[in-house]
């Protein structure tokens, strides 16, 4: 037993402890440095999100997706059938980069609603609902269709994982003056007063889809601000 104790005492334990103590400040500095890098440059690391761009037929969903991808949309083709867009990077005005995963361009026809809309709404984090503002104001049948679709979106949104629904009333350029635009906003909002889905229009804006800068400003300032 004594021999064993002597043997243990003869082991170079103090040297090993010294070595560990010597490395501790280095490890601490490394952790501190890594933390600082993450804090200072954290925003530049891509943030992965999933988007669902949904809405009425001819509302500008394809153009919206082209704008998000910073691509020129000059082949004006309507969408019929699901177009796989895949992953892309969305660079915001505030310097933040978002990686949008598994994105799809889906058609707006009514027949697609029972087929894919429900799952699409429930499975994505950010929902963008588009409709033609000019038609909404001037065509009663269209307005009823949009409202039915909003009710459907709202119902499925409540059962899904989405963090928010953002409504874009497109074709704002068809309103000739600022006053007409303001009137349209008021009319659209008041038309859903008292409806179960009225809350969807709390994140609502009138948009000229050809003005990509306006869209990027809304995305950067309102939907994905720095502190988001």
């Amino acid at each position, binding site marked *: 037993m004594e021999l064993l104790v002597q043997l243990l005492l003869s082991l170079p334990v103090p040297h090993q402890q010294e070595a560990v103590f010597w490395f501790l400040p280095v490890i601490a500095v490394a952790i501190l440095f890594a933390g600082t890098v993450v804090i200072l440059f954290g925003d530049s690391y891509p943030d992965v999100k999933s988007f669902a761009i949904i809405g009425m037929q001819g509302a500008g969903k394809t153009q919206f997706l082209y704008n998000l991808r910073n691509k020129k949309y000059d082949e004006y*083709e309507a*969408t019929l059938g699901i177009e796989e867009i895949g992953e892309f990077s969305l660079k915001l005005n505030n310097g933040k980069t978002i990686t949008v995963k598994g994105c799809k361009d889906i058609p707006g026809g*009514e027949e697609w609603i029972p087929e894919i809309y429900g799952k699409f709404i429930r499975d994505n984090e950010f929902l963008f609902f588009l409709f033609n503002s000019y038609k909404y104001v001037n065509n009663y049948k269209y307005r009823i269709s949009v409202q039915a679709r909003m009710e459907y979106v709202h119902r499925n949104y409540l059962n899904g994982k989405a963090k928010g629904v953002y409504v874009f009333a497109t074709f704002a350029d068809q309103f000739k003056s600022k006053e007409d635009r303001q009137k349209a906003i008021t009319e659209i909002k008041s038309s859903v007063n008292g409806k179960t889905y009225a809350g969807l229009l709390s994140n609502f804006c009138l948009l000229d889809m050809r003005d990509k800068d306006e869209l990027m400003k809304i995305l950067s300032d309102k939907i994905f601000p720095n502190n988001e």
Partner: protein
Amino acid sequence: MNNILYTQNESATKSNTIVVDGVSYNDMNTGVAQEAFRFVNKKSSLKGDYVRILDILKRMRKVESQNLQFKKDDDGVFIKACFKEKDELGRKMPFLYYCKTDNMLDACKQLIASAKELNRTCYENDINALLNVSKYLAAGVSISLIILILIIWKM
């Protein structure tokens, strides 16, 4: 179902149309129309044939429809493209078409006839590309082989 043509209408407020064996439907949520709609939708989600060749033709502006796609399998021929006619927003009107045949020429002839029933016209360039896509592939392979032989010969 031997022949299905599913297409958009001029106005966004008008429902899309599906023509199944000569009968036109606007409601695709029940019966034969729903079955046909699901069938062409499923076909359009599958990987098409000669995708790379068609992409090259699109970039070279040898075809008009940027969504041009086709698939030939045991079920028949599936084609996705656009008509010459445009909708109220000035966009080319797309279609999904299925024909129970193993012959591309026959499918194209039937597509043109079905489109005519709806007062629609297919792009000649698109039809030519569909009929000659295997020839384009053969030409591409031949050119590549000649270039390869020339490179080896020069070495």
